[in-house]
């Protein structure tokens, strides 16, 4: 009994030293995390002790709605978690990171694509995600933002269920170009060339996660959320190429008129 008390005291001391939000890495906590495909590399780097299921966010949302045994839902948009929250399926979602889209072309780049406008040329074969999955929806937003919807969709030869499939097909040369998250493009540096989507046409790509309401592991699941939101978790997201959450949004206000000046050089 005394040994047991000492062991408990030691455990408490160790836990105290690791910080309030973090959980000990020693043992799996048994959470099942349903997460967007684009989080495939970074989430296990933040917490390797959970069971992950990576797929298109829309697929995961449907599975959770149908009763799949998930504890956490991490989506590549804010819309799906908000819908599940409204339906009472998940607890209140929180935003946790941002991303941006890029174009990838095979390293050989047989069509000589240098920019997004080259995707309008006849004969270019483009792969995108379908519009139900967030990256597909973001892709369509870019095309609309640039007034290129009809020209580029005319060259789309395949639509995938998640971003990683788009990346794989382009890296294998099965398409001339595809739209993926910049973080996914970084995972195959020798196989694709990355072309930026103009900043003025980028959609706002914000990720959100939430605890599933029916999860029997509410406290542990909330601890996972806290871990992702923690300074260390956010630093890990950034190290994998994700963007930090937006600072307070402001619009430029007209500058005040200068009332007096003193001639000096000119």
């Amino acid at each position, binding site marked *: 009994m005394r040994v047991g008390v000492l062991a408990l005291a030691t455990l408490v001391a160790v836990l105290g030293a690791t910080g309030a939000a973090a959980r000990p890495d020693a043992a799996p906590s048994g959470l099942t995390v349903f997460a967007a495909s684009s989080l495939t590399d970074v989430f296990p780097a933040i917490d390797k002790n959970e069971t992950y299921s990576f797929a298109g966010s829309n697929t995961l949302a449907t599975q959770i709605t149908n009763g799949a045994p998930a504890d956490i839902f991490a989506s590549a948009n804010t819309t799906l978690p908000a819908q599940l929250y409204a339906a009472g399926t998940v607890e209140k979602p929180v935003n946790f990171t941002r991303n941006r889209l890029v174009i990838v072309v095979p390293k050989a780049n047989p069509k000589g694509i240098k*920019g997004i*406008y080259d995707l309008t040329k006849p004969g270019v074969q483009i792969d995108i995600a379908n519009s139900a999955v967030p990256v597909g929806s973001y892709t369509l937003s870019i095309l*609309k*933002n*640039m*007034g*290129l*919807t009809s020209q580029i969709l005319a060259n789309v030869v395949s639509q995938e269920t998640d971003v990683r499939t788009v990346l794989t097909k382009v890296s294998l040369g099965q398409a001339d170009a595809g739209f993926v998250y910049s973080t996914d493009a970084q995972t195959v540096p020798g196989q694709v060339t990355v072309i*930026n989507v*103009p*900043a*003025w*046409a*980028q959609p*706002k790509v914000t990720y959100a996660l939430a605890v599933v309401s029916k999860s029997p592991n509410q406290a542990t699941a909330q601890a996972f959320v806290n871990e992702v939101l923690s300074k260390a978790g956010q630093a890990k997201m950034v190290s994998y190429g994700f963007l930090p959450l*937006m*600072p*307070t*949004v*402001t*619009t*430029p*206000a*007209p*500058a005040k*008129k*200068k009332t007096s*000046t*003193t*001639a*000096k*050089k*000119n």
Partner: protein
Amino acid sequence: MFETLAGSAAADPLPDGDLAFARLLVGAELLAADFYTQAIAAKQFGAVTQKYLAIALQNEQAHYQSVSLILSGAGQTPAVATDFNFSYPGGSFGSRRSIATLGGKLEAVFLGAYLGAIAGIQTPALAGPLARIAASESQHLSLWETELDGRPLTGAFPAPITIEQVSDAMDAYTS
């Protein structure tokens, strides 16, 4: 100006191509405002030119408000400065000449962008307000040309540039 643009956007749904021009110009104005903010902060010029830079900054901010109304009138959210990372070549703000060189490059793009938009838009009601902004950008360009070589006037017919060319030019400074 504001009412004209907003009214144009609200009366009939604008085609995607026109909204694309508006989105591009919003980005251009945010870049312009950032450039003038940094140019003023560099304090490389005397009082008179510093005053002109402040006026140019006010102009760009007013342009931003104006072209933003095209998007907001169409139910869309215009970009704000925090949506962009602005960057410039090293030393861009280190001397009067380097600032003037960059200012001349940027203003040539902005002027060409507005002239290109006027040529490319499908909604005639937008052309007038965009032309007035182009005239303002032309004044800014003249400021930098004067600073660079003392000649405020150049060609009789400044050329429009395509949306693709403007986008490529802006890529060098925005991400």
